[in-house]
């Protein structure tokens, strides 16, 4: 019997706000333990939550970016459970009236080759709701210490429908979702900092069956690669159990990305009864059309839409767009440089950014924002090459210098005397006449129609000019002289 996997993902994304979800104290990462706290975060006796409107703005934006229906009214519920990382021993969340419903995430599956665009799919969402993050337990030798810095950070839970079919699709889903959230300025989605976390619900069923199989929840998928690997591992585990005549038990499993193994955390019988009820400390929230319109105006173009535009507006090849569009700052950088360089130079600009700039950034471990190379530098470099002033080989050298110092390329060329050709066309013409005179065989072949024979003339010219002759000008001059006589 052939089986297929059915996967639903629950993704938690921390919203990047100044302050926490229900109090004024700052939200942040990497601060000394328990410094981002106040009476509300610590759940001291008598405190009350007050909603952070910026967090609501952000989730509405996320919902609009993903095509969700924004509920006209949403409310807050308490999810009750005891754990030391939860100061109130209940979490304020949204149970039956989440703010975003439906919507979808567009994904691109791997293409047949790296340079060929893959198939696009739309992964349906069930809902997105807003809640507060919990603190962090640090287990020491004899104690467990709790740090409440993270507690109360605004957190979105994005729940997909069980429509994901493979580990690769899950990987593509998270990649796309993360890019969208970063694009929207909603979150930095740094998984190492816990800003994006993912749980997967996985089941298998015979192909053709419409009923869902028994699901297993996989937790602690700490990177997008672990999500892919963990899901692949779980599908194989379920297939193995099923094929050896066993049955899948509904449970929560913990995936260890280091060892590539998983173990059971708890079974269905031990599942919590969260005793949800509406939080009496908070009022329901009405989101009217004016509010939605205000957020809509802040929504950026998303990666796939940008990619389509880059194909038509700049005639870029897939390989360039597939690098540029996933990073909003890189894409913006590209567009600025392309605009400065002027028409017809976008692909060259793209090549310099995607190949050379990215490589140098990687080697120097720098962010785009940190480099001294500004879009104007790239535009100038491409313009110099296009004008024939700079040869490609020399340009690489100029680029490295420019990356190190931030000196404009024209200045480097002038200072180092790297200009491609003597501006004196008489000198160039002299080299060409010498070459024609000294290479009768090549001249004869060319005149007989062998196009490539002209290259036999160019070598001696480059040699005579010590490599500085502008190849474009050399080519033009040779053809003119050969045609003349």
């Amino acid at each position, binding site marked *: 019997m052939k089986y297929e996997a059915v996967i639903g993902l629950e993704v938690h994304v921390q919203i990047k706000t100044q302050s926490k979800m229900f109090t004024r104290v700052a939200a942040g990462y990497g601060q000394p333990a328990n410094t981002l706290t106040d009476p509300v975060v610590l*759940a001291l*006796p008598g405190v*009350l939550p007050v909603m952070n409107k910026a967090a609501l703005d952000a989730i509405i934006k996320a919902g609009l970016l993903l095509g969700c229906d924004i509920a006209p009214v949403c409310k807050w519920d*308490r999810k009750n459970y005891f754990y030391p990382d939860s100061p109130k021993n209940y979490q304020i969340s949204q149970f039956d009236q989440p703010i975003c419903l439906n919507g979808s995430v567009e994904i691109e599956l791997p293409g047949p080759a790296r340079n060929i665009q893959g198939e696009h799919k739309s992964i349906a969402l069930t809902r997105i709701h807003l809640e507060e993050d919990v603190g962090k337990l640090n287990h020491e030798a004899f104690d467990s210490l709790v740090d409440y810095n993270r507690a109360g950070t605004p957190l979105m839970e994005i729940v997909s429908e069980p429509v994901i079919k493979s580990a690769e699709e899950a990987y593509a889903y998270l990649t796309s979702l993360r890019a969208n959230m970063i694009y929207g300025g909603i979150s930095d989605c740094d998984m190492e900092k816990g800003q994006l976390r993912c749980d997967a619900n996985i089941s298998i069923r015979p192909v053709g069956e419409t009923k869902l199989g028994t699901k297993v929840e996989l937790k602690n998928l700490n990177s997008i690669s672990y999500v892919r690997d963990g899901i692949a591992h779980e599908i194989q585990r379920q297939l193995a159990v099923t094929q050896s005549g066993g049955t899948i038990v509904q449970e929560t499993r913990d995936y260890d990305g280091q060892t590539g193994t998983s173990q059971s955390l708890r079974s269905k019988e031990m599942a919590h009864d969260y005793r949800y009820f509406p939080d009496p400390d908070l009022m329901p929230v009405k989101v009217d059309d004016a509010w939605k319109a205000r957020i809509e105006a802040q929504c950026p173009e998303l990666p796939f839409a940008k990619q389509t535009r880059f194909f038509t507006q700049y005639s870029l090849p897939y390989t360039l767009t597939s690098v540029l569009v996933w990073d909003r700052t890189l894409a913006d950088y590209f567009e600025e440089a392309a605009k400065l360089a002027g028409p017809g130079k976008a692909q060259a600009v793209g090549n310099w950014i995607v190949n050379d700039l990215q490589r140098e950034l990687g080697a120097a471990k720098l962010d785009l924002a940190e480099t001294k190379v500004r879009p104007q530098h790239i535009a100038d470099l491409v313009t110099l090459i296009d004008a024939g002033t700079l040869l490609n080989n020399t340009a690489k050298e100029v680029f490295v210098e420019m990356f190190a110092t931030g000196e404009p390329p024209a200045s480097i060329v002038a200072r180092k005397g790297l200009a491609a050709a003597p501006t004196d066309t008489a000198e160039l013409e002299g080299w060409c006449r010498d070459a024609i005179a000294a290479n009768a065989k090549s001249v004869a072949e060319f005149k007989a129609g062998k196009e490539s024979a002209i290259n036999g003339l160019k070598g001696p010219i480059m040699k005579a000019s010590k490599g500085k002759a502008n190849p474009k000008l050399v080519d033009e001059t040779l053809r003119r002289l050969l045609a003349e006589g």
Partner: protein
Amino acid sequence: MSDASLHFQSIAELAALLEAKTITSVQLTEAVIARTQAVEERVKAFNSYDAADALAQAAASDARRAAGQALGPLDGIPIGIKDVIAVTGQPLTASSKMLANFVSPYDATVTQKLKKAGAVIWGRLNLDEFAMGSSTENSAFHTTRNPYDLERVPGGSSGGSAAALAAGEAIATLGSDTGGSIRQPAALCNVVGLKPTYGLVSRYGLIAFASSLDQIGPFNRTVEDAAITLQAIAGYDENDSTSVKIEIPDYRAALKEKKGPWRIGIPKEYFGEGLDPEVAAAVEKAVSFYEKMGCEIKNVSLPHTEYGVGVYYIIATAECSSNLSRYDGIRYGHRSAEAKDVVDLYYKSRAEGFGPEVKRRIILGTYVLSSGYYDAYYLRAQKVRTLIRQDFLNAYQEVDAIITPTTPTPAFKRGAKADPLAMYLCDVYTIGVNLAGLPGISVPCGFSSGGLPIGMQLIGQPFKEADLLAIANAYDSKHDWSRRTPNL
């Protein structure tokens, strides 16, 4: 009897003396401290007090006044605070072993407001643990006595607030009212007790019992004092999402401006079985007073009254089961020394830290919120709650206020209501007001043949405290019940 000592004067009277510089706040505060030291051993209204701190505040008030910067009628007036309302640097115990050693690092909004009005924040007043009870017998520390009969309870949960005021150990006090916890002890201790409309006074800094029902309010010697105190504590607070943005009128001015006559409703459901005849007679006499002053007295019906106690004990326990989850021994409060692991720490800390009534309500509330029971209990209770509110709103089509007894009987003896259900029925007349979110005030209206105070309850319309206070003042200003003092 009626004692004219400083510590038995009203805020209005003392404010005049302070303004005329006949007395200083330090003198007044010293008088209150001396009185407290004299009677507290018998009354046991306080969990703690800090005389030096109070005198320092009084001295600051006197300095303001000397500089011509007096802040208003509360400046220099010692006001006692129920030990569920946060005061920076003061204990905040909820009369629970769980918080026996907890000191608040922050002020409740009402505390801030009283400080801004110049009041001398005075002492921490006893209550039933976490405000759960009607006698203060559920305090983990000690039972407060009724100043009119030390063998009897002062009511609860704000029993300390009522008893301290009645005994002259404060000039006014603050309490909190979830199902009658201000009005019931006020009635039993012969003082005025006001529960404002839900949302009028910020709950920030009030230890939550049942969030959708809790409201802070004042205990006073007169209705006029209630108007003065409410003025200081009412108003929208950005720290409490359930507080309401409305214009706050001049309550004290309203007492003179609003002269009636009013239409006053008598709900037959509040005068039935279980009502002590002496209480009924006292309230009926008050009704006659209103009738004589030209008010129209109308019978009204609140048909869902009988479901009040049941609905209350579902909603209040559900909310408290969640509100009290934070007391877990992890960050503050009682932590068991015996715990082996984290789950054991929860079990033991909470088992040792909470008293039996608190545990009973947490268990009840956990049950009614459980999967499979939620719809039958919590959801249904919320629907009936809506009907109870609608009963009142229907009645207000015809009347301006409703008059009822505050309690079925005068103060009962300590230990007389060991059965929790009997204790729950003490609040049968006060619970509806919380469920409907309305303002209610208990005003002294007589004494039983045994010399025990009797209170009547006036119930007003949402956010119309100005009218309610004016109606209450029309009676209170023409009677001296509330100015009588106990023979301690």
